[in-house]
């Protein structure tokens, strides 16, 4: 039957176009809020550790003996924040995808993750280089800049507001690069406070 054939073809064409055109729309605002809270906790732990060590983060190029445990603590702290924040954001996004009936692992998910992860991995590797050279003072700046670039990129494949968050993070990162003494505060602002604010905005806009 002709009508049936053409109807089926039309439906499959529509579905294909929609899939290609759509974005990863399951990014939950609560992901941002939870990641922000985790980051603030991590920043608090870092500042506590630095006080215990009686040390400011060494300036770029400055290396001091006796900072080894502090360095190790900060690395472990940062990695824990990354893992817990990723786990929380995944949890809330999976929950949102289920609620809205979006496919969890469609092409848009892959585009979004690739756009996010490639700059992020480069940033992680660069942080490794800074650690290797003992340049702790630039770590907050580098994390913020690369994370901002990752968001700017990923924003093309999800809610476009994410791109503005990325741009703000880049600016905060560059500021942190100029004033390493403010590094931790700017880091807490970019990864903590901004995530929470953005998460609430996205939640209010898309999930109510």
């Amino acid at each position: 039957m002709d009508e049936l054939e053409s109807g089926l073809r039309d439906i499959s064409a529509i579905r294909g176009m929609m899939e290609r055109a759509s974005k990863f729309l399951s990014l939950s605002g609560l992901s941002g809020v939870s990641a922000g809270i985790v980051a603030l906790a991590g920043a608090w732990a870092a500042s506590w550790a630095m006080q215990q060590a009686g040390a400011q983060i060494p300036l770029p190029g400055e290396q001091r003996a006796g900072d080894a445990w502090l360095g190790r603590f900060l690395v472990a702290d940062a990695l824990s924040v990354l893992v817990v924040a990723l786990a929380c954001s995944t949890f809330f996004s999976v929950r949102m995808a289920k609620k809205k009936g979006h496919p969890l692992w469609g092409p848009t998910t892959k585009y979004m993750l690739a756009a996010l992860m490639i700059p992020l991995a480069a940033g992680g590797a660069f942080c490794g280089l800074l650690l290797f050279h003992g340049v702790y003072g630039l770590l907050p700046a580098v994390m913020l800049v690369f994370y901002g670039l990752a968001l700017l990129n990923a924003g093309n494949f999800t809610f476009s507001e994410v791109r503005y968050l990325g741009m703000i993070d880049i600016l905060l990162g560059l500021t942190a690069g100029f004033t390493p003494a403010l590094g931790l505060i700017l880091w807490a602002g970019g990864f903590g406070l901004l995530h929470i604010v953005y998460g609430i905005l996205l939640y209010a806009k898309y999930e109510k």
Partner: protein
Amino acid sequence: MIPSFENLNKAFDNRIRLAIMSVLFVRGEVDFNDLKKMLRATDGNLATHLAVLERHKYLKVKKLFVGRKPRTTYTITESGSKAFSGHVDALEEVIREGKK
């Protein structure tokens, strides 16, 4: 005569117009070049079909300049989005009845 055929929208009986509406339905707004890439259509062909949809008031055209380059974006209208949903419903109806 199966009644649901009558609900199929004539404006969408063309594959390109159908594709344009599918993209607009999910994106809300799209610019000409993006659309061209996605549909793999020629400028003239695409422009003709966009004009038809505009005449039906299913989309709105916005022209602006980015630097010196003109950029044309298309936004789906509320009636366009209703008409498209209605058309998809009718297609499903046709398929359901055809399968019987």
